[in-house]
């Protein structure tokens, strides 16, 4: 075992700091205990290839680092730690090995050691910002707020716009009972990034400042999503994962990045290994739809249904596809089936609501929307649909609230300003309608919805003036 284990807060024990200039003795090929039978053949092949490479080049720290990353990415933390340590014994200044080790030590709850490992990364790669902000968050976890703040500020020296550091500074301020110091960081970030976690933190800050109404509006839209910050070295480890779940995660990352061709290649490859995996088939259908291959998409989904008729996501995907081809009857049938199979599937209720709006069945649509939003739907377009249905059924206060919720997240949403004006018009509150239009146009002058509504409001005001009623 290499001399890498540190006592909490005590630094190195049992050995001195590694001498980075001294060549290390060759390490024997690692023989960790790997539960081979637990892995699918693909994971086994990847790991065995990594082991084979190490056997072929036992003195090569880079090959050994790669094996550590393979263990790490495939859910073998103990083997990964051991192999990272072997790699560091050969090349003590390898910041990527320190980084992988730091992430695993964090995962294992060895926080003080993880902090020290991140410090090693920063010594060897001072410009790698994630190592600094990771350390900041660990210090925050330990309640060492001042040290955490220093780390976040050090991150910004390296990467002045780092969202991770600014969120860290905001969290430190909130933890210190200084919501006023958190607000500027969060508001400036929200101006450039739409993120539920920012809404959550800013809502908390407002709440603690007594700005309850603003807090309530922000928090009404909060999902329980922890933040994801850019971290390329961690990405390499995640990409080393060869399990089905790792592959699905990778497909999703490619889709999120707009790289649909590579996502398609990865998906097809995964389906070759697991032809009856419904999640993969649904991903394939999603990609086919995005690439305009609608017939192929429906074929894929029908294949998924033949495998398991009771898998609700397949029905929802089919509903979307039939809706896209204007087959509302089938679209509704599949949305309905999805809600029957999984009554808690918010998106299915939402889809059913949208289809019912299209069929002018507004009371039923609102029932679906009510369920969908109670289950946590957050989508702005969906909220527009909901607000529209509420407006058309005369539930004006509820409609106003929905538009206001959207505006709390995005003050430049012209459609919501137009929606507010629409509701006010229906309430015969011409002054409020005009005010909404004017405020909206100041923020979203190019909004088609708003321009149309401005004209409607103006005509209505003119009409009232002609009949002698001032707005």
């Amino acid at each position, binding site marked *: 075992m290499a001399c890498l284990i540190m*006592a909490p807060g005590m630094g190195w024990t049992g050995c001195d700091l590694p001498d980075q200039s001294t060549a290390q003795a060759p390490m024997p090929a690692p023989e960790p205990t790997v539960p081979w039978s*637990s892995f699918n053949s693909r994971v086994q092949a990847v790991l065995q290839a990594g082991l084979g490479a190490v056997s072929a080049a036992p003195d090569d720290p880079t090959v050994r680092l790669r094996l550590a990353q393979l263990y790490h990415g495939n859910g*073998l933390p103990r083997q990964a730690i051991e192999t990272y340590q072997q790699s560091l014994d050969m090349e003590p200044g390898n910041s990527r090995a320190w980084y992988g080790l730091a992430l695993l030590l964090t995962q294992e709850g060895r926080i003080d050691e993880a902090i020290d490992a991140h410090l090693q990364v920063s010594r060897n790669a001072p410009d790698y910002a994630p190592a600094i902000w990771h350390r900041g968050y660990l210090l925050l*976890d330990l309640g060492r707020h001042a040290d955490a703040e220093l780390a976040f500020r050090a991150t910004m020296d390296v990467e002045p716009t780092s969202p991770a550091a600014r969120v860290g500074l905001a969290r430190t301020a909130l*933890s210190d009972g200084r919501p006023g110091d958190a607000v500027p960081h969060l508001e400036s970030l929200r101006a450039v990034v739409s993120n539920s976690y920012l809404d959550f933190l800013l809502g908390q800050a407002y709440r603690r400042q007594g700005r309850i109404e603003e807090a309530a509006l922000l928090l009404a839209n*909060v999902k329980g999503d922890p933040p994801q910050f850019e971290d390329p070295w961690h990405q390499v480890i995640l990409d080393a994962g060869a399990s089905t779940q790792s592959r699905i995660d990778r497909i999703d990352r490619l889709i999120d990045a707009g790289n649909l061709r590579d996502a398609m290649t990865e998906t097809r490859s995964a389906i070759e290994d697991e032809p009856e995996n*419904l999640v993969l088939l649904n991903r394939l259908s999603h990609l086919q739809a995005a690439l305009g291959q609608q017939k192929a998409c429906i074929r894929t989904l029908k294949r998924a249904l033949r495998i398991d008729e009771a898998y609700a996501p397949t029905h929802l995907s089919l509903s979307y596809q039939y809706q896209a081809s204007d087959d509302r009857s089938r679209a509704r049938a599949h949305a309905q089936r999805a809600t029957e199979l999984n009554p808690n599937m918010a998106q299915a209720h939402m889809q059913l609501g949208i289809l019912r709006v299209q069929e002018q069945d507004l009371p039923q649509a609102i029932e679906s929307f009510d369920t969908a939003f109670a289950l946590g739907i957050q989508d702005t377009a969906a909220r527009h649909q909901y607000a529209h249905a509420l407006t058309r059924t005369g539930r004006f206060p509820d409609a106003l609230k929905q538009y206001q919720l959207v505006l709390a997240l995005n003050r430049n949403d012209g459609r919501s300003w137009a929606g507010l004006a629409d509701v006010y018009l229906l309430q015969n509150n011409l002054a409020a309608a005009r005010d909404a239009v004017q405020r909206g146009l100041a923020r979203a002058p190019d909004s088609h919805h708003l321009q149309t509504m401005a004209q409607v409001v103006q005509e209505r005001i003119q009409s009232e003036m002609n009949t002698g009623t001032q707005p």
Partner: protein
Amino acid sequence: MIRSALITGLACLLLAGCGESAPPQRTPPATAAAPAPPAAPWFVDATTESNINFNWTSGQFGDYLLPEIIGGGVALLDVDGDNDLDIYLVQGGEIESALDSSRTNPASNRLYRNDGDWHFQDITEESGAGNTGYGQGVATGDYDNDGDLDLYVTNVGPNALLRNDGNGRFTDVTTASGTAHPGWGTSAAFLDTDRDGDLDLYITNYISWSPETELDCSLMTTGRDYCSPRNYDAPARDVLYENLGNGRFSDVTAKAGIDTSMGNGLGIACVDFDDDGWTDIFIANDGTRDLLWHNQRDGSFKDIGLLAGCALDDEGRPKAGMGVTVSDIDDDGDMDLLVCNLTGESDSLFRNEGTYFVDITASSDLRTTTKPFTRFGMAWLDFNNDGYLDLYEANGRVLRSPVPEGVDPYAQQNMLMRGSSQGVFSEVLPRGGVVDPISLTSRAAAFGDLDNDGAMDIIVVNRDAPITLLRNIAPDAGHWILLQVLDEHGRDAIGAVVSARIGSRTLSRPLLTNYSYLAANDPRIHLGLGANKSVDTVTIRWVDGTAETFGPLAADRQHVLQRGSGH
């Protein structure tokens, strides 16, 4: 039909990196000083001498049915009025038998009478309390205002209300009372939601589940195992029954607005969090955001968890909420909140700021200490009577360890943390405050003074293993006082808040039996007094908002404080 769990892109379902890792062992400080002598234990295992022979039987046989990994529960209550706490243990058994009306679950709940001297007698058969549902949790409360505590048992399937006749015999009044909710009940609590002088009943439900909807989940490193509740995507609505005062309850879930939010409910604590004189309800959900039902004073509740800052942790994450405990940890008179969670997720300590909470887990030193464990039963109590609340947590995995420490791959050690005047918690070693750390799959823990010596004892329910009965022998313990707080009917005044003036400090404690996890606890208020030999005054704020003061009261004894006898 067993369907494959089709794990989507959700993080932390069953992925390596999000799973349960082995807890770190404490590394001794690397100083040159001579090794410190072993610390004196705070508890001694009294299970063997107790004559209690009870394993919570999961019935597991390889199908990994989710309820097998969740239960079971325990209650401490004086069933026969002899002024000592008896023990009611909820049993699991065979799920499919319990859910099939043509079959009988071979296991039943057990009632053990406290005969003194740490000896207990199984009186299940004569008591009539042996419900045979596949049991999860239990709540206690005197719903009929006759001066004794009744039992409400939650099951996978219909729950049961057992009325206590005061001498250790129970009558199953489930049907007559209208409380046989058929869902998967977990923690439940009696509380007076409408201040009408009788106890209503809130039932936390976990997920919508049946053996037919069970999934097949596997981990890369350990193979098939129990699924995460998130795999099912089927959170359940909780239930609120209003006590009609005539032995019957009415389901007012929808009328009260409790149907407007839902989650994978496991834990509950009911106190007046915002000091408006009306009892609120906190629900810990497993993998979905926690709920804080604010009492609207008109029979309805509104979930304000997000606005109040206790629905998510400070990373914006819904944790796997299990157990809950409530008390005033900072002597400011309002009720703070502690929720325990899954391995990889720390406890969440929410300090009450009057109308909202601040997550102070990290500055209380609970963030990194608790993270390695999957915690269930828990309580903030002053176990060493030094005047500061300590914390006990009963732990056990929900996924097998890839490197089990013993024969039970789900076993984890339980923990004890000492509180301090600085508001930080430090772990008591040996782990759990016992000579040989308890390493089982622990679930419910109930807390109470079983031998009336002024030191709070613990009973822990373990999955497929004997219960653990811990007698408190904390060294250098301070003075103490026990308060039995009764309302005008002579029943435990659940929902009242007791504030004890001791020198320059005021210790406030809620009177509630239902907290921790699937558990019902000693209804008496226990206070550690440190070096103080008396309590100057005790002010009780009753559930209807009125206050009454008692005292001074001498230390090291139990006092009965009945409404109307103070000033």
